[in-house]
């Protein structure tokens, strides 16, 4: 639960059954395991997000397999059909077992 994450819905007001774009960002260094630390000269060990899961009302809607070649502070954007009033939960998992969760409510007007 440690990391800062942000979820934004576009557009902000939507009707039932509309397509809503979900923009998500998480603060993560995404070390590839190839870069050397400039001060110590040692290779920074790989530390990156490798799985993102999106749940809408408890149901797995989208899952993203991620490799280290995604930029630092990864941004993912996708659509969702807002046809029910339910929470949208995004779970980020990294290769060291760290898990971050963030939930937003989807309530169509």
């Amino acid at each position, binding site marked *: 639960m440690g990391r800062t994450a942000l979820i934004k819905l576009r557009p902000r007001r939507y009707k039932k059954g509309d*397509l809503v*774009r979900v923009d998500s960002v998480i603060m993560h260094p995404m070390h*590839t*395991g*190839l*870069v*050397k630390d400039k001060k110590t000269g040692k*290779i920074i*060990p*790989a530390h990156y997000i490798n799985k993102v899961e999106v749940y*809408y009302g408890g*149901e*797995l*809607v*989208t*899952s*993203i*397999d*991620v*490799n*280290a*070649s*995604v*930029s*630092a502070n*990864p*941004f*993912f*954007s*996708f*659509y*969702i*059909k807002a046809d029910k009033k339910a929470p949208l939960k995004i779970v980020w998992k990294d290769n060291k077992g760290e898990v971050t969760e963030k939930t937003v409510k989807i309530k169509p007007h």
Partner: protein
Amino acid sequence: MNRRNFLKMTAVAGAVVAVSPAVPLGLEAKAQPKKRSFEEALKEITKGKKPVESQKVKLIAPSIAENGAVVPVKVEVVEPIENVKAIHIMADKNFDPWTCSVHLTPQNGKPYFSTRIRLAKTMNVYAIAELKDGSFIMAKKPVKVTIGGCG
């Protein structure tokens, strides 16, 4: 310090700088990141099938990226969402060409995905869409990178 010594030292320093990038390459092979060729990575995703280039996959990426560490990529597939199972993004000359795979469901409403990726140098970016019948369609776009982003 006289001129002779100075020249000697710069030559040595230059040699050290030139050699040092070659040293960690051997170490990297043993560490967990694995270098793969594009064909190998593609085979793992498509399981031997050949993706067909198609106008139905729309890949939006800048033709010139100033910073290879952050290259925005947007993929849209002109197909009903029920027909699209997954979208894969690849970059052929990266250390590991496979970048990410998105598995979609009909609840998504629209086969669309956007993210930001790293590119080590100038190369082609591929968007491969996996359809329901098991076939693959793809689009590619060359991206020119001025500063590489994979370290």
